[in-house]
């Protein structure tokens, strides 16, 4: 039944989205169960520095999974271990297995790595506008995936920019350089880019740092809508943001997973005292 439901959902995704907007992935990763991402005994080291102690964690399909914790807790490293961008840091060593859709990401070889990254949208805290036009910023990933049809791209760019709440501000100047936008706009452009390759998983790392509160609230609403289509991993240092949005929440401290569970439980009656201290603001 579970299996059926998930296939049903992805089927809906495929049909609901306008046919033209669908990015064709050469080989979709197989859908196995309700668990979308699972960490089995994963630990990460940078040289001799331990960035993440061994931990187990599961992220379910179509949920918003909040990750909270103080600075230097290994949250960003965790996101990087999902889409294998840790490969670009020579000193980083991952042990244990990160599984996306049941497939161990470290076992992926060759060009399939890039397909894995196309399944995962990433937004990092520092706004990065590429030195391309706003339009090309958003159309970058679809183009790399082999889509060059102007009409399809137009639709896709508009949709992603609307979802990132940027469309109204830039719709008249799509040919402007992405680097010339303001910091908050660049951050939303980054979100639009992360959505542009139609990912199954969206990882947001403290996305609201450069964005004003009103727009942040609007984006949060969009995230709640997107939950129907995607799994969202939300790393945030705004504890209340996690409480508002997340279905499940994990708490990391000093590169260790303290606990994870349903958000209400974490916020009202966590198993560890330190978690309670952190969510109540009594930390440290």
């Amino acid at each position, binding site marked *: 039944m579970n299996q059926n439901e998930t296939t049903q959902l992805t089927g809906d995704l495929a049909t609901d989205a306008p046919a033209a907007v669908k990015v064709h992935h050469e080989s979709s990763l197989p859908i196995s169960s309700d668990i979308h991402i699972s960490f089995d005994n994963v630990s990460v080291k940078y040289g001799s520095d331990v960035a993440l102690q061994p931990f187990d964690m599961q992220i379910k399909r179509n949920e918003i999974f909040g990750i909270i914790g103080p600075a230097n807790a290994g949250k960003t490293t965790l996101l990087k271990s999902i889409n294998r*961008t840790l490969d670009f840091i020579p000193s980083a060593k991952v042990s244990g297995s990160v599984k996306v859709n049941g497939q161990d990401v470290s076992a992926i070889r060759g060009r399939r790595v890039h397909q894995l990254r196309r399944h995962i949208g990433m937004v*990092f805290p520092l706004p*990065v506008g590429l030195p*391309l036009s706003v339009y090309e910023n958003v159309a970058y990933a679809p183009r*790399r995936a082999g889509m060059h049809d102007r009409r399809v791209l137009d639709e896709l760019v508009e949709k992603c920019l609307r979802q990132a709440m940027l469309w109204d501000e830039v719709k008249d100047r799509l040919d402007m350089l992405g680097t010339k936008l303001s910091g908050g706009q660049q951050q939303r452009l*980054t979100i639009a880019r992360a959505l542009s390759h139609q990912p199954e998983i969206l990882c947001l790392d403290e996305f609201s740092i450069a964005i004003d509160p009103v727009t942040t609230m609007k984006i949060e609403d969009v995230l709640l809508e997107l939950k129907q289509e995607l799994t969202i991993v939300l790393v945030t240092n705004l504890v209340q943001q996690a409480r508002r949005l997340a279905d499940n929440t994990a708490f990391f401290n000093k590169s260790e997973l303290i606990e994870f569970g349903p958000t209400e439980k974490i916020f009202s009656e966590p198993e560890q005292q330190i978690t309670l201290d952190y969510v109540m603001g009594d930390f440290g």
Partner: protein
Amino acid sequence: MANVNLNPNDGNNPFARTPQEIKRKRIELGAQFTFLMMTMALVIPMLWIMWDLAYRASDVLSYTYMVIGVGCVGLLIPYFLIEAAKRNEHKRKLFMGLAIAILAGISIWIVCITVFNMDNGGFDFLTLNPKKRMTAGGVWAPLIGTFLLVLLSLVISAPIGILAGVYLSEFANDNWFTRIINLAVVNLAGVPSIVHGLFGVGAFVYFMDMGRSLLAASSTVAVMTLPVIITSTKEALTSVPQSFRAACWNMGATKWQTIRTLVLPNSINGILTGVILQVARAAGETAPILFTGALYYKKIADTGFDSFVPYGLEDRFMALSYHLFTVATQVQDVPESFQFGTAVVLIGMVLMVNSISIGFRIYLRARKRW
């Protein structure tokens, strides 16, 4: 009471200058003047040397000076006129008309004097081959030799250097071997050019059995410019922030796609600036070609296609820098104006290429993309 005139030298004024302050101020001004003089001690001799060179070469190059001078004025005045026309609505037509008239007049003048060759010698010094043991004719043969040398060495070193720079900064892992290579490249850029010449003799002329030829000399010059091209390419590439690359990789772009679509388009201008600078260096260097292919004198065709491609890959060739050395120190009875003319042509060529590079860089700084 309110309107007290503060005299800086008045003893009652609390802000008056003390004698000590005045002395310090004088010392400061004196030192500033000294520094200015030091700078001038560099700039003035250089300008004087340039002037002296140009003046003593004027017998053979006066016509070229005139054409270049009039050409520059003839381009600058219309440029300012057009700029003025953009600002001034009322007299736009007048300004534009004047600009066009000046441009037309100068082009007609240049065409006339080129076709009818009115002046004394005209461009003869540039277009004729050396004759009568370098005492007559011009510098065409060495000029075209230098051109071919630079072209050929660039064909070898630019692609290899640029791609090696891309490899070293984008693909190579950061391990001890790469670090040694980087150190070697940096050090090689500071190795004396005569050592490169020695390498060329040992490696290309004898070991690879190219003999003393255009090919051997070009390869030597290419090897000399290679490390600098690699270094400047790496610098241009590292000026593209790492976060751009990370953003592309996160969207599933491969390394090559990232380089092709983002890194290269944003650094190609910097890379080209470095390459252009090496063109100037390759044109001016003498030591590396001294034993690898340059020749005192070689008779080449005066007209036709052969005068444009006079040297094959296997041939020895004349080069402007070596020609200058020859006419200055090795050959008797060369008229002074010929010696100075050769020097001016060489400097003119090198400085022109360098000015292009400098202009390019200023233009780039003006349109920064992030």
